[in-house]
């Protein structure tokens, strides 16, 4: 006869093991029947669009969402097909992805890392999203990229410009189409040298988080390489609204260029403050004072109004580009929504099509197969010219635009003019470049 020996200690032990097992998130304990996380079994496949729908970047996020919905339309054969007609890969036929109708769910990142992770997790766990696309902040992108890596789904980043996204924080399941801080510096510096000369003293105001730090480092390195001196770099809190007390020290610093490493509302306010203090009317060291905004967006330009006139910056893409991919996308987007798309909208649209195309070429939704199809993929026809998705760090390489605020805008959308299309070769760098070092892609994680 066996004796059941139940002690307090054994109950606690068993209970804690069982509790730990039950507490494990379901995304990390996928069913053994599935080959990978959220393997589609019915006639549909679900994509997760994680964008800021509330918070300071909500307009940017809503523009991204419009583009993502347009991409789903085109994938399902609705509308004029947009860039499916110009994309050099002909794998997409307008019949969904691998024959499955595309559906989507949306999440609100609120431009907060914890909220973005929670919404991405919910879309993966509850809605069965097989890919997450979106984001308008590098902090958010890096946080969600880490989550997708652990969950075993692909992350197709939206607007994220920090070097770290495909540098020290790169992940095998994460892919970035957008350009980065290093590329902005490499594209801007020669134009700045041509316009303002090589004997300049630059004062940086920098948003105090990952994107600001890496952009400042990149722009300072690029401008110092052309002979400029970096006089000072002041970190400003992300929550700042009035930058006047950061601007006034610039007046007597001996600097003749102010570099605003700010984005969104920060940039609108700091630029407005700088103009109010008459920086652009000043003559320093015998030269006209200048302002540079390394990363521009159309929505920021609209917010800054006439203050951006003549101010140089860089962009990933602009609706005024003259190529077949741009024309097709602008026509589809413009006819559906009555306005031209922003560059954050374009990157999300391109990423959604690139993901779908990679699934078709790989013949599977398995993240490892999709990742392999994206790595070192060369394509054209999505609006940016010939583009290479480098396998070593999952960073896209393509031409970068140097733009400046339009001097004489003719309509509400004519806020920026393209100064130069910097060729891809000029913005390329080694995967082991010091600004990107320290990270490791690791191995693709299929989840299940």
């Amino acid at each position: 006869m066996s004796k059941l020996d139940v002690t307090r200690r054994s109950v606690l032990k068993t209970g804690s093991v069982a509790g730990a097992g039950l507490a494990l998130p379901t995304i990390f304990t996928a069913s053994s029947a599935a080959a990978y996380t959220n393997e589609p079994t019915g006639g549909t496949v679900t994509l997760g669009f994680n964008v800021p729908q509330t918070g300071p970047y909500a307009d940017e996020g809503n523009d991204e969402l419009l583009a993502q919905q347009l991409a789903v339309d085109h994938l399902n054969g609705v509308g004029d097909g947009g860039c499916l007609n110009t994309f050099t890969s002909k794998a997409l036929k307008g019949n969904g992805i691998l024959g499955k109708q595309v559906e989507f769910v949306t999440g609100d990142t609120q431009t907060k890392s914890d909220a973005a992770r929670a919404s991405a997790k919910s879309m993966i766990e509850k809605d069965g999203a097989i890919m997450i696309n979106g984001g308008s902040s590098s902090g958010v992108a890096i946080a969600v990229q880490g989550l997708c890596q652990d969950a075993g789904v692909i992350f197709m980043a939206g607007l994220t410009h920090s070097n770290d996204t495909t540098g020290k924080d790169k992940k095998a399941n994460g892919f970035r189409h957008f350009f980065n801080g290093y590329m902005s510096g490499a594209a801007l510096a020669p134009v700045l040298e041509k316009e303002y000369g090589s004997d300049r003293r630059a004062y940086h105001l920098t948003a105090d988080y990952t994107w600001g730090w890496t952009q400042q480092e990149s722009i300072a390195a690029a401008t110092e390489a052309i002979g400029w001196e970096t006089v000072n770099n002041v970190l400003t809190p992300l929550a700042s609204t009035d930058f006047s007390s950061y601007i006034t020290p610039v007046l007597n610093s001996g600097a003749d260029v102010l570099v605003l490493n700010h984005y969104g509302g920060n940039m609108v306010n700091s630029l407005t403050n700088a103009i109010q203090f008459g920086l652009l009317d000043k003559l320093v060291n015998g030269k006209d004072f200048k302002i540079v905004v390394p990363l521009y967006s159309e929505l920021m330009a609209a917010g800054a109004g006439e203050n951006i006139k003549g101010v140089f910056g860089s962009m990933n893409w602009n609706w005024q580009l003259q190529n077949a991919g741009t024309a097709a996308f602008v026509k589809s987007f413009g006819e559906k929504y009555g306005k031209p798309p922003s560059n954050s909208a374009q990157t999300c649209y391109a990423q959604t099509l690139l993901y779908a195309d990679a699934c078709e070429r790989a013949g599977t939704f398995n993240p490892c197969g999709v990742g392999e199809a994206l790595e070192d993929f060369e394509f054209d026809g999505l609006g940016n010219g010939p583009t290479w998705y480098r396998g070593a760090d999952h960073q896209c390489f393509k031409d970068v635009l140097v733009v400046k605020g339009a001097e004489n805008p003719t309509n509400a959308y004519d806020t920026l003019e393209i100064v130069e299309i910097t060729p891809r070769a000029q913005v390329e760098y080694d995967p082991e470049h010091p600004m990107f070092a320290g990270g490791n892609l690791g191995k693709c994680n299929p989840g299940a």
Partner: protein
Amino acid sequence: MDALILQVLNGLDKGSAYALIALGLTLIFGTLGVVNFAHGALFMIGAFCAVTVQRLLSLSFVTVDETQKDFLGKPLKVETPYVEAWFGPEVGAAIIDWSVPLAIIFAIPIMLAVGFIMERGLIKHFYKREHADQILVTFGLAIVLQELVKHYYGANPIPTPAPDAFKGSFDFGALIGFDPNTIIYPYWRLVYFAFSAVIIAGVFSFLRFTTFGMVVRAGMADRETVGLLGINIDRRFTIMFGIAAAVAGLAGVMYTPINSPNYHMGMDFLVLSFVVVVVGGMGSLPGAVLAGFLLGILESFASFSPIKNFFENWLFLPSIDQIIIYLVAIVILLTRPRGLMGRKGVMEE
């Protein structure tokens, strides 16, 4: 020296905004005993009154210009403001240019009405409730108001420039013997400072030199006795709520050329304004104004990079610009628990 003078000037305009918001907060707390967390939202609504006036004045009719193309290559739709059609291009453009000062006329009745509706419709039901309940309901109201504004105006900042006549900067340096262009200050910020001074003086004069003000002050000191004298003190306090809302709203209207308004701007000011009220002394109007300017100037100095670097490198306190107000608040409350000019018995058992 020139840099220090500039930081003081900077602090004055920031302090002006804090003082105006804190003044309204203190008025409401002193009269109705309500801790109004929706006061920042009133500042924001004032700013959006300016945006609304700008949009109303810019209402346009559309004509199609066949000679120009839009972004889709179709004939361009050209918008011409009605005011330019009615009054001629120059006068019409000038009217639009002066939309922010004109918005003051629009904002006063709107803000009085918003204050009245807010007080009669919601806040009066919480007079006898705990301060925690008042904070929760007014904070909830602030979120509702800002989400409504975001829904109708979007999340992006909306440029609302000052009239052309106030663009550019005043050269203080040249005036007081420094090199030209070393101490310059934007005209509109000077206007904002002067405007704040006038509003603050107006509120104090109203309370000090009018019978209405005298009754309100008496009611703030002893509500019951004033009521026993047959005076309807509640009605006067409701009017004071409207006036406090109007002060916050006007502060918002005039602030729009300094920073483009967005739906979140009220929240950005709210917490700091409460610190200002506490440092100044709960219920003290002069305390609110004094603390507003004091903390505005301190915040400005803390953002000055040599001072910021000193704190970071020598005192191991990074980002002093973000915490200075709270540090000073702690020190003041430890040494003067009722704040700088607080009255005995306010918020005390």
